[in-house]
């Protein structure tokens, strides 16, 4: 069993999500491992898990019904304990946590958080130094959200609605890339589509591949709804994903550190519930069976790492 998949699910409670873990052999078999414990099953909702490359740490967002506006958590899967994090945002929600593959950095979005510029801004916390990392030039007066980190935190993909002209109304959400070492934005030529909404980015370990969801027309499928796309920074072009998308809404992609596997959620027909988690193998260009993964309740927001890295080469 070489792949570890984390995902959110409503299977245990009616509308409060829990995070589950599933192990897969990378071919056709897998097993459900269990879920994160919840201290207050009636109130707490856990969602959007994100894994370190070794599968040891899971970052996630959580919320107590009407108690706090949203905060981030880190769970040590080996020690089965929470890892302390800095103080909450005093102004509102912190959400959309994403941990780097090496476990050092935690990027997240904060609503009106001190130090921000707009509505949602992005922040990156250094778990070793226990301090926020400066991200000059990243945030704007608009909204920056949905961070995704490369293995060492060098590359930070995110979404923004910042328009090209200052003081203009917000633009349709698109994906941007930030170089945290050089502290500057990096162009993604050939990635965006004018007027289309690109969102939910996920980076592979070295930052070469960028998976994302877009509502752009996809000539490769009959879909008129969201589709998964893959951008290769090395060739500055989109990579075909034959057999992945459907006519239903396909979204929330997460690419494995080596770039071979993509997990995603889909509303397509034939699943166990309304929304299910699917595993796509780029090398084989097909969806892999995931026995025991999905449930009649909704399963969504998957993350994947490959515990046997040699399997993850494309």
């Amino acid at each position, binding site marked *: 069993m070489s792949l570890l998949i984390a995902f959110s699910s409503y299977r245990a409670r009616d509308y409060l999500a829990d995070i589950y873990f599933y192990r897969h052999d990378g071919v056709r078999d897998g097993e459900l491992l269990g879920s994160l414990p919840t201290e207050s099953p009636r109130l707490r909702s856990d969602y959007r898990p994100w894994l370190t490359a070794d599968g040891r740490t899971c970052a996630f967002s959580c919320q107590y019904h009407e108690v706090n506006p949203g905060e981030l958590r880190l769970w040590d899967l080996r020690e089965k304990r929470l890892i302390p994090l800095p103080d909450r945002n005093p102004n509102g929600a912190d959400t959309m946590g994403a941990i780097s593959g090496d476990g050092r950095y935690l990027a997240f979005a904060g*609503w009106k958080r001190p130090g921000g510029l707009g509505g949602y801004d992005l922040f990156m916390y250094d778990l070793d130094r226990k301090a926020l990392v400066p991200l000059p030039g990243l945030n704007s007066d608009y909204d920056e959200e949905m961070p995704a980190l490369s293995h060492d935190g060098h590359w930070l993909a995110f979404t923004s609605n910042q328009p090209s002209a200052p003081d203009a109304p917000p633009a349709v959400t698109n994906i941007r890339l930030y170089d945290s070492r050089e502290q500057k934005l990096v162009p993604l030529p050939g990635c965006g589509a004018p007027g289309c909404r690109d969102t939910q980015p996920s980076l592979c370990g070295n930052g070469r591949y960028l998976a994302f969801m877009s509502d752009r027309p996809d000539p490769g499928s009959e879909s008129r709804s969201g589709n998964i796309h893959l951008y290769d920074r090395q060739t500055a072009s989109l990579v075909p994903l034959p057999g992945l998308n459907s006519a239903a809404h396909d979204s929330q992609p997460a690419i494995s550190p080596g770039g071979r596997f993509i997990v995603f959620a889909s509303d397509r027909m034939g699943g166990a519930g309304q929304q299910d988690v699917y595993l796509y193998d780029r090398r084989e260009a097909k969806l892999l069976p995931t026995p025991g993964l999905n449930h009649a309740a909704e399963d969504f927001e998957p993350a994947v790492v490959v515990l046997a890295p040699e399997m993850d080469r494309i």
Partner: protein
Amino acid sequence: MLRVGTAISRNCGGVTRRELLQIGGSSAFGLSLASALRASPAQPPGKADSCIVIWLNGGPSQHETFDPKPDQPSEIRGQYAPIETAVSGIRISSLLPQLARQADRYTIIRSFTHESFDHSFIPMMNGGAEARTAYGSVVSRFLGGTGAIPPYVHLGMRFLLGAGVLGSAHEPVVVTDPGQGSVNLPDYDPPPRVDSPRFKRRLQLLGEFETLRAHVEGSAALRAADATMQRALSMLAAPAVRDAFDLSREPMKLRERYGGTTFGQSCLLGRRLIEAGTRFVQVMWSDRGGSSFDTHGITRAGSFEMEQYLCPRMDQGVSALLQDMHERGLLKRTLVLGFGEFGRTHKINERGGRDHWPGVFSGFVAGGGTPAGTVVGSSDAEGAYPGSRPVRPGDLAATLYRLLGMSSLTDDRLRPFVRGGPVAELL
């Protein structure tokens, strides 16, 4: 009462578990339908023969759907920019790209308004009238059916607004989860007047009809029932009716185009029922285990549910319905409306969500002789109150009835159900 399956929808008032198929409301099985059949059907002289109401449970934000305010500060405009639509000059949220491409098929109402902050089907589903009676029941009573098919069908989560003074005869047939072929059926109760072990099995929707048909043909109890009762049961057991409810008859590609969600499949079933002759279909937003449009941000920070689940499913289901009905020529004589109980606050709360707000909100109207590619009313700069042409629930009711050929001006019996005037721009 006959129940099949469950579906769940949630708002901040709690979770509601809904019967999948309920015939006759709380009355004895079949009785209400039988009574409904006694009503003399009339040929409606209106622009529309039938109607689909899409109830966007929880109250969707006007800012994130049909009335974006991009020039406002971030705590008002939210994260999602507007996009151009198929109609020059009309822009809607970028969260609804497929509906944007079909903006020439519907009219946006941007000035719904009332005073109730509660999650309730009143006033938007009864027009705020004194009579607490759903539109569908009124239509069932005054227009009747068009044949063997039930005149009034409810699809999705439980509907807490009944026929009221019109009596159980005009309660809807309820199908809570039409699209999930493998759904469990935990709430199955045998109908009280048809006592047979076969009815105690948990059956899926089509199985229910097969079983029902067997009983109509063979039950001594039913043979003793009055003729109208038998006719009611026969109606539901008729192959044509059974087929109308059978989504497996649709191509899988078309089913997927509607989305593999309860809501999407409800929209598709709505089209099938209209095609088969049902007069009034209610499609309720139903999200199994998920969320409604009640996006306070209390179970998930921010408006991300709008982006990740709610708007994509709404966009897919409604746009597929409009396109499918257009392609089949059904939209000309079928009125399609979509709205929720209210809108959301113009200012985003600390959780990044929006709270209840009936001051102004948006919806849409398509088909049935209404204009398309236009906007009725407007909100103010922040999207908090009507800026022009307020449309109250009573106006909505009067418009709906008028388009279906019913008017309190010509039929006094309709007066308890109408508390406003029709929106002239929609007639």
